[in-house]
């Protein structure tokens, strides 16, 4: 029977799939563990700052129809709008993940002891875009009076999908491989969508209501800075940071 190649393939396919799901990040994690621990000299560290500008007419975001779940709808006084493209009043773009993509010496960065937090409140994820250091804990809350499922649609890290009961104990998760960035969704409430970016180091930011970002404590060097937006994609720029210096870089997206 096992001489039969198609049959072998048929039985092996699920096992290979499971192996791929569970073990894909293992070699990367081991290689990372062999790297020296990163150290930044505060005397020479500088900062990289900038803004993400939006050119053109801001697209109107559709309202989210929560009528299928009145318990979600009741938690909002005004209709919620999709957060796919949020243009600030000053013409900048919110929810853009900015990080140093390349240029840092190979090193293992110690993740922050404090967990990054993702909340489910009013059937909306808060924050919409979340940056997290590889190996840092992710704490997931459900502040809603209803069930949610949390589906991390990772490609590099192992994906997972778990339910979270109303006001249940917080969930703690960890991502061991860099991955910028992947959606987190809830299939109970299909409009719920947030994005997580797992960075190998702590030099990242997410633009807020002024569209600005600052990466502090960066060692001097020449870096590739990348901006990532869920709809408009990726843009790159290069900066050279002098010892104890500061440098600016702006990104421009448009409709």
């Amino acid at each position, binding site marked *: 029977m096992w001489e039969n190649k198609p049959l072998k393939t048929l039985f092996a*396919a*699920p096992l290979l*799939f*499971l192996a791929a*799901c569970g073990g894909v990040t293992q070699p990367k994690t081991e290689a990372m563990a062999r790297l020296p621990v990163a150290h930044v000299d505060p005397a020479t560290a500088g900062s990289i700052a900038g803004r993400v500008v939006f050119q053109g007419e801001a*697209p109107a975001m*559709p*309202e*989210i*129809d929560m009528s*299928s*779940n009145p*318990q*979600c709808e009741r938690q909002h006084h005004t209709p919620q709008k*999709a957060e*796919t493209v949020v243009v600030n009043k000053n013409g900048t773009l919110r929810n853009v993940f900015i990080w140093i993509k390349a240029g840092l010496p190979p090193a293992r960065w110690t993740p922050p002891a404090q967990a990054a937090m993702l909340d489910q409140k009013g059937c909306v994820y808060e924050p919409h875009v979340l940056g997290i250091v590889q190996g840092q804990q992710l704490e997931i809350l459900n502040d809603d009076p*209803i*069930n949610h*499922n949390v*589906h991390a649609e990772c490609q590099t890290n192992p*994906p*997972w*999908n*778990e*339910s979270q*009961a109303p006001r249940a104990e917080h969930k703690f998760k960890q991502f061991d491989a860099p991955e910028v960035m992947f959606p987190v*969704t*809830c*299939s*109970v*409430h*299909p*409009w719920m969508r947030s994005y997580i970016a797992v960075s190998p180091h702590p030099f990242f930011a997410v633009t807020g209501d002024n569209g600005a970002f600052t990466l502090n404590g960066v060692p001097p060097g020449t870096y590739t800075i990348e901006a990532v937006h869920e709809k408009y994609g990726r843009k790159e720029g290069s900066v050279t940071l002098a010892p104890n210096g500061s440098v600016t870089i702006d990104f421009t997206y448009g409709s």
Partner: protein
Amino acid sequence: MAVKGEYNPGLYRWSVLLAFCTLLLVVAGGLVTSRDAGLSVPDWPLSYGKLMPPMEGGILYEHGHRMVATTVGLLTIVSMIWLFRADSRKWLRWLGVVALLAVIVQGVLGGLTVLLLLPWWISTSHACLAQLFFSTTVAIALFTSEWWLRGPAVLDEDPRYPIRGLSLAAPVCVLVQLALGAAARHKAIGTIYHIAWAPVVTAVILWISLRILLHYAHNRELRIASLALLGIVFCQVFLGIGAYMSRIAYADAVQPMPAMVALTVLHVAVGALTMAASVALAILVRRNLTSPVRDFAAPRVAAIT
């Protein structure tokens, strides 16, 4: 026990009920995919560790699908037992066993696709087996009908317009189309393949149906089956166009959009009807038309009556 040629109204009605519930199950499954609710219940076979979770949001669709599936499973078990107890046709009893095995495999595929986070090849297999299972239930309903048991009005196939072999092309082409559609829905391939194959499958069905209507229309069974298939395909083509246009129109909207869901799910359901109608037509063609070249075809035909 009923013997060959005896009509059992209870068994027939049960078979029709099974086929109808299976069509509802296809609709329920289509709703799960269209509403992106496939992972709203992360566990299986229980739902949130219970037999009956709170039916809110996507859980309503996913757990509702599981409930309809359980009902269809139970109906299929009864159907198989009934066939064994009340019908003397061995091949039909075995078709009942095949249906039960198919519904079990289908349930396991449904569970696996949830536990493995919707891998496209399991989700697509689940969708294709659903269509095949529905066709099987329709075939069982056909075989247990009084109409079938009255026997065929056998004709000789006109060698200038062969149709016996050609009639098998329709279900094969439809199955390919259903697989392409399912693979596109589960994001394994682009919708373009499903769109590109649509004219081929439509042309094959038109060719077969028109040949029957032009050359074998005096056979009532074949005439009705061809017209039914043509009518279903006509609706299906427009539903397909509508589903695709709604997808473009609502590309930037917060999903799921009700109009898009309705058109897509109807397209899936009528796809299942297309498959079942093409299978039924192929069965009827091979039953009602004998091949003039092969005189020994007649006893083979008689064997499945």
